[in-house]
Each structure stands twice: as C-alpha cells, then as structure tokens.
C-alpha cells in the first residue's frame, strides 16, 4: 500500500467536500489516515460504514473503473495536479480528469452564470471566453446549459482551452444535451470531477463542485445570475479564497441580472464591462 493507493481508496469511499476527512488527509497523509482508519484509530461506531467500505475496496478495481472511461486519477503531487485547489479548507482528496490533463495548471478564468441566459448574457459569456483565450488563458466552467455552455463554446470557437468541472461521474454526460460539447472539450481541454464514475449529479454535488470551479481559477466572472443562484455560491467561494470576483452588470429590470447586481451591491464582486477591464482588475489583484 502506497500513498497513491491509499488516496484512491479514501477518494472512492468519501464523498467530495467532506471537511473533516479533507482536513485530516491534508494535514497528515492519506496513508496515515488509511492505516489509522483500518486499525480502529477513529470512532468505530460513528465511522463503521466507512471503515467497512475502505476495507473492502481494492485499488486495482478503482483504477480500472476510472481507466475504462479513458480518464486518469490525479492526486496532490502529480505533475498535472491543479495545486490551486489546495487553498480550499476542504481540498479534494483526489480528482478524476479526462482529456488533456496538462491544461489543469494553466492560468484560467471561471465563467459562471444562469442556465437561462438572455441573448445578452449568452453573447457576453462567449465574448469574454474568447477574449481570455486570446490572452492565453483557459476558461473554466461547469458544463451546464446556459452561460456555462456559451463560455465553453466561446473558448472552443476561439481555438482555446476550456475545462469543464462536472458534478457527476466522468462516465455520465450531465446534462445529456451537452454530450457533444463534452467530447469537444476533451479534445483540447479537460473534464474534471471529484466523484467516482457512476455517481449521479445530485443537488449537493453541484455546491461542492462550485467550490472547485472557484478554487481552480485565478478569477471568477459571473455573467448573469438570478437573485437565488448557484453561481452566487461559486462567487462567494472565490471571494473566501481571496480570488478576484467580477460580475457583469445588466438591465435593472432583467431577472437574470439580479444576482450580479446583488454581488456588486454587496461589494462582493467588481463590476467589469469589457475584457480589458477584467484583465486589468485581475492584474492588480495578483
């Protein structure tokens, strides 16, 4: 049993974003936590199910289940490990990546927003993605419908690199309508996830996924978001990590710009009105 095998086993047994185990593994090492878990170093009653699962898991099985989908398991210390995610209070134990893993360490901008954009938002998302790609940045988003899709597409049309961090297993194309988009992303960029293959896209996974989007990128841009929106979560996660957060203003009578205006009003995000603005703002904050 080495560190990699221990990581893989713990990764497969523990749901992403668990603050206790994340911190435990981050402070010591996966191997130590693994041994401690097997040898009854933790509360055997409270963690009974987990211990059982860890005991019965085999690295080979986990490894094949990942490789069968053409994906790779990444752990901290790997040359392609996106080290910026270690800034999180609950960093991922490991990640599964598909496509071109080299892009994970490049400078990147996260573009997030509503699934129901207006034409305005759709256009801005694409334009900003293309603008940043032109400046050799990659574009990170969540692979969902709406702003996410337009950001990915904008980057691809500008022949740039884009990374989709998805909330389900690498083998599940969620949403199914974006299957082709995911395939295109994999050709130059990468798909990244924090859960094992076969895991469904459940609501809580979107929130834990959002923190990764915020952490993996230098800066986060909210294009359009409703008053209540997952994109605002991503923005707040990014702000907690002291990453620059930007928001695009919209008409004050547009429901899909309410979230952006809320962030700007709360001084949680900087208002940006052009790609040049955004580049300058990120430059000052680095």
């Amino acid at each position: 049993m080495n560190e990699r095998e221990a990581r893989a086993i713990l990764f497969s047994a523990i749901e992403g974003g668990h603050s206790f185990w994340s911190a435990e593994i981050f402070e010591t090492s996966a191997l130590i936590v693994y041994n401690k878990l097997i040898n009854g170093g933790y509360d055997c009653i409270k963690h009974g199910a987990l211990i059982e699962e860890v005991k019965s898991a085999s690295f080979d099985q986990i490894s094949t289940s990942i490789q069968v989908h053409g994906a790779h398991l990444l752990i901290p210390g790997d040359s392609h490990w996106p080290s910026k995610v270690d800034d999180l209070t609950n960093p991922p134990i490991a990640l599964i990546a598909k496509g071109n893993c080299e892009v994970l360490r490049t400078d990147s901008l996260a573009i997030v927003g509503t699934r129901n954009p207006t034409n305005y938002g759709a256009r801005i998302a694409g334009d900003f993605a293309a603008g940043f790609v032109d400046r050799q940045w990659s574009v990170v988003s969540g692979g969902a419908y709406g702003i996410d899709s337009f950001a990915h597409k904008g980057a691809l049309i500008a022949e740039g690199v884009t990374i989709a961090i998805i909330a389900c297993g690498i083998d599940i194309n969620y949403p199914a309508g974006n299957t082709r988009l995911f395939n295109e992303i994999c050709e130059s960029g990468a798909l990244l996830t924090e859960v094992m293959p076969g895991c469904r896209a459940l609501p809580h996974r979107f929130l834990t996924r959002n923190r990764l989007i915020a952490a993996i990128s230098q800066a986060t841009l909210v294009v359009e978001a409703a008053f209540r929106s997952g994109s605002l979560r991503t923005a707040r996660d990014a702000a907690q990590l002291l990453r620059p957060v930007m928001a695009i203003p919209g008409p004050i009578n547009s429901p899909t710009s309410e979230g952006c205006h809320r962030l700007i009003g709360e001084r949680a995000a900087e208002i940006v009105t052009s790609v040049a603005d955004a580049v300058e703002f990120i430059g000052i904050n680095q």
Partner: protein
Amino acid sequence: MSLAHTQSVALLGLDGHVVTVEVDIADGLPMYVLLGLPDAALSESRDRVRSAIVNCGEKWPNRKVTVSLSPAWLPKSGSSFDLAICIALLSAHETISAEAIADIVFLGELSLDGRIRAVRGVLPALIAAQKAGVKTAVVPSANYQEAQLMQGIEIIAMEHVKQVLRWLRTGEREIADEFDLQWQPFDDTLDFADVAGQPQARLAAEIAAAGGHHILLIGPPGAGKTMIAERIPTILPSLSIAQALEVAAVHSIAGLFTNRSPTSLLAPIVSPHHTTTRVAMVGGGAHVIKPGACSLAHNGVLFIDEAPECPAGVLDSLRQPLEAGTITIARSIGNITFPAQFLLVLAANPCPCGKFSGRGRNCTCTSQQVRRYLGRLSGPLMDRIDMRVQVDPVGRVDMARTDLGETSAAIRLRVIAARSVAEVRFADYNWKLNSQIPSRALRTVFQPERAGMNFLHDELDKERITARGLHKIIRVAWTLADMHGHAIPTLNDVEQAHILRGGVEL
C-alpha cells in the same frame, strides 16, 4: 308524370358538387326510400319534408316514393337538401311543372311548418353552382346576405315553402330587400392608438404586417401581448374582393357569420384557446369536415395566446399549412383541402408562473421550469418564426401619458406602401411578400448590401446564427429596407433584423 328532378349542392370541404335530386312516385305500398349515401341528418329529411308538405296544405303521396341523390357515390350530409327534395317530390306528384324546377338549385333546411331555415356553406355551394353553369338558385332568407356576394347567378331568397310554391306556380314573388352590399373595410373598435408604449412590439407588429413575418411575443401577463396581437388585423391592408370571398366561403362552411360579417374587408383574426385540439386547429371531423382555426384565419391572423401551454402536437400540426399555405385533411370520404394562408402570432409568458421578468423576485419557478417552458415550442416551429419580441410591462411614464399612440390608420398606410414596393420588386416572381422569398433566390438575387452580408457571415462564423437563421434575418431585413425606403437592405437593416430575430440562437 310521376318523375321529377331538380338540383342542389353537396359540399366536400370547400369543393361543391352539383347534385341532381330525382324523385319517383310509383305504385306500391306507401314507403320512402332515400338513395345516394345520406348521413343521419339527411336521412331524417323524410320526416321534415313530410310534415312541411302536409302543413303547407299540400298532399303527401301515399305511394312508394324513391328519392335519389346523384352522383350516388358521393357521400352527402346535412339538412340543406330538404328544400330540393320537397320541391322535386311535389313536382313528381304533379302539382308543379317539372320543367320549371329542373335547372334551379335549391338550398335550405325545412322546419315542420314549412319555413326555410338557414344552412351552412351557402357561399361555397353557390360558387360551385355558378361554375357548373346554374343560372338561378333559391336560398334561405337568413343566408341572403352571404349569398349576395356571388355575382353572375340569380339569387332568390325565400322564407317559406308556400312562397316557393306560389312563385313556381304563378311566377309571383316578393322581392326581398337587397342587403346593403357596402363592403365594410374597417372596423374601428380596435385601434393601435389604445396600446400604451411598447415601441419594440409595435415595430415588430408593423414589420410582421408589412412582410408577412410570423412573430412570437414573450412577456409577463398584462404587458399587452394580446392587445397588440388583436390589433394586427387593423394594420393589414384591406382584403381584395377575391380574398374576402375566400374568407367568407370558409366562414360559411363553418357557419360562423355570427362573429364576422360576410361583407367585412377586414382581415380575420382567430384566436383558438390553448386547450384546443389538433382537429380544431387544422380542421377535420368524421362526416362533415369542417375547417379549423388555421383556415378560418386564412388571409388574416392566427393568434395563439399562451402558446407553450398548447398540448404537444397541436402547434406542430401548423407546420404543413405554414409551409404550403393550405391544409389537406385525409378522411375515408376523400382528401379535402382548405386554404390556410395566415400570419402566425404566438404569445408566451416567460415562465409557467409568468413572473420571471422585471426583477423576477416573485417568480416561483425553478431554473429548469423556466428553461423548459419556452422549450415546449418545438424547434421546427420556432424556425418558422421570424421575430421573437420581448414585451416588457408598461412603464410608469407610458401609463401616465394622456396622448394616444399612433393610430392603426397611420401604420396601415406605411404597411401598404412597404407591401407595394415589395410587389413591384417581385413582379416577375410567383410570390408577393418578403417572408415568402425562397432561400435560393435569397442567395442569388436578393442579397443585402456587402457590409450587411459580411456582418451576417461573421455571425455565422462565430456560430451565433445558423444558415437558416441567416435567411430569416435577410427576409426581415428586406421588409425593413422597404419600410425605410432603401433599394436593398443596408447594414443597419440587417442588424435590426438580427436583433428582432432574437440574436443568439439557443
């Protein structure tokens, strides 16, 4: 002589067939046989005719009566043969001269006391009769107004069988008052001046009227979508007499002159409810095939409010008429074609609860519900929509305004001017409106100016529009050019058309 014949008309959709009604009275046990594929309403004519004859003081022949409606293979339905059967029967009974009735078409249902009641489809029946060379037709008084639209055929309106008999026996008849055949071009109860504000929706309505472009209005309840849609007929040019006849014929078949005067030159508007069925939308029925909403809106406007609430398939059934301008209904009795050239106006709320506009904080729909709502309008249908227009709630300033907006009459003048420019341009082609330019002609002859084309190609390269979208934009740009007096669409026209199209295609 115990044999006589006269004429009536059977309708299959809008197509009328002149039917010979023959009656033979022979010796034998008293009985009554009706031949020629009658339906239930027609089979019951025996009892109506019998009572009417007896109550008019005539004698019912207590012998074997055979009534034959030929051509025999043609299925016949409805009560409009009553009068013809009654007259032919009395003639066979030798109370009227057989020559007098042989070349006359009789239409009308009988009541038991001998009065002649109104029937559906008098106008298309008369059109068919005229084509067949009939010179004289007797129609119910109640249908006289509609019947008078027919020129070149003598129309005699009768209220009672007794009047008909007196006329046939003595040649005397009361001349029914001629109805005022003033075409009523415009109805001034609805006017665009009533609409407060809404500059973009007004513009879209004007473009739709000028170029025949279908539109989708999206906006919260109460923003004025219905108000705008209902007023689109008032800015359309008035119908030509030929168009008005087509409209009146369809309405005549449907028996719908209660909501529309047959002499109106105003383009019709039909607004089926969103719970409507496919048959009500495109027409159909088992025995009597009736035109649907899309045919009643022929030469006018088909307005569907709350379009996403329509059951799946109802809106898609409009795809054929949108493409062909006609709707063909296939039933066991044959294929029936109704005209269906209409301007489609769809209206939709932004989400199921309708509140996803403005600040949107009262909206109770989930993100997925919002996304799926407009997604219920199928892609192929949306492809045929040239403009998608956001209708925002009326603002404070527009509400406070005391001066009225532009009147329909003023807008209509511009629409007519734009249409006539297009008509001159398309003189050598077989279409009249910009929305009808085929895509081949768009690529070869009807291109906008260079800068506009470059703009569109740029959008195409960025995958913001599709090739089909590009064609739609050029068509709307042509209408804008006609309205602005440009010889060919400028960059500005193209950009404006692009915005109206809804910019990015999702």
